[in-house]
């Protein structure tokens, strides 16, 4: 059976949410970040990103990873699209044109949004959001997010979802990237159509179920 490796305190959330929306049967193997394990290589250590058994699945040692019938994949966005193609249905691309459009959004998310979003998230997680340096990093990242957020906002003014007038894997990967910005007050809110779409995504039962699992983990 298709296996998703990772903890829900990582980009594994997007893979699990995608599998749930697709109704794709999968098994999840919990993998902790090595940094959160006292002695990651100890014999009784829980499976973690430094475990040789995990590195055989993903030599990058990153989460999530996927294993399906001998195929091992890393990169969360590639994993989401792989599962969508495998399962088909309304959440997956319905044509090559749709797939191209969805990939366009995914690469925009990966190249333009995620690095800035992670910068903001880590600044908050590191408790530096109120320091001078932290404020400057957040402001610089927020500045770089203006262009892609404006593009998304404009696009979403006239439609509820990114592609095909229905909820798809493109919405999942974009929301999961935008979500890392949520720690910065007012940033998403300053783009009203983007904010309405963001709330629509998170109102999905499969998101709610994934989020409950995450919070329990």
């Amino acid at each position, binding site marked *: 059976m298709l296996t998703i490796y990772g903890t829900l305190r990582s980009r594994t959330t997007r893979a699990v949410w995608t599998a749930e929306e697709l109704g794709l049967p999968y098994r999840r193997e919990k993998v902790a970040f090595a940094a959160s394990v006292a002695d990651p290589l100890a014999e009784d250590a829980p499976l973690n990103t430094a475990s040789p058994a995990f590195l055989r699945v993903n030599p990058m*040692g990153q989460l999530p990873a996927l294993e399906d019938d001998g195929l091992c994949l890393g*990169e969360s*966005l*590639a994993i989401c699209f792989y599962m969508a*193609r495998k399962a088909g249905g309304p959440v997956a691309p319905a044509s*090559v044109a749709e797939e*191209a*459009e969805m990939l366009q959004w995914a*690469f925009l998310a990966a*190249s333009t949004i995620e690095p800035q979003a992670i910068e903001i998230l880590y600044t908050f997680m590191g408790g530096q959001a109120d320091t001078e340096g932290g404020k400057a990093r957040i402001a610089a990242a927020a500045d770089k997010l203006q262009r892609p957020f404006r593009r998304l906002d404009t696009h979403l003014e006239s439609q509820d979802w990114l592609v095909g007038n229905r909820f798809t894997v493109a919405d999942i990967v974009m929301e999961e990237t935008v979500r890392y910005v949520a720690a910065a007050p007012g940033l998403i809110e300053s783009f009203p159509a983007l904010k309405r779409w963001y709330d629509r995504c998170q109102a999905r039962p499969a998101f709610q179920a994934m989020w409950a699992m995450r919070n329990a983990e």
Partner: protein
Amino acid sequence: MTAPAAAITLYGNLRSRAMRPLWLLREMGVPFEFVPVIQAYRLADPSAPGAPFNTADPAFRALNTQGQVPILRDGTQVLTESMAITLHLARTRGGPLAPANAAEDGEALQWGFVAISALEAPSLDILMTCDAGRQDTPDGQTVLATASAALMRPLARIEQHLQGRDWLMGGRFTVADIMVEECLRYAQPHPPALAPFPMVRAWLERCQSRPIFRTLMQEREAETL
């Protein structure tokens, strides 16, 4: 999925990310039209009369408001994002450079995202530092050191993957090699970044020895816009 026979128009230039789909199209032998567009920031006055067709031109902006290159027009569809464009062309036009099955589809996507999320940004930092002649300044040295450090993990992973392999997937040159090479090429002006990775360097040399790549680099040198 079936290949549409729609006309392909690619907008960009040889000193831009348009190289990715351009190289692929040439390797695939697919007919297409190439419309030279220069980045507006490379021009002193992009709106001057007689200025070359550039990304600030209203006619270009009408295609896509982002004003970035490359842009692909495939029939009636207009696409941005060089990697999405490149993967789309491979998947729709097929042939040996394209993924051959579902597993390769997944692998090609994985390499595309490795290139974008782990390789492109530090490699571009290296390129811009060296292009600006700042590699010997204290700031430049810091940028080069930070970028080289950021490349260590993904390059170690590719180095390991290339043990016993000539190409990234399927035992043949594919769209995956083009996407990764085109990002790593930006790191080459700073050889120490690649020094610890002999398999990666040998693979880069294999990619860059391809006749079509060499021809494109000659055209790039000769390009006037």
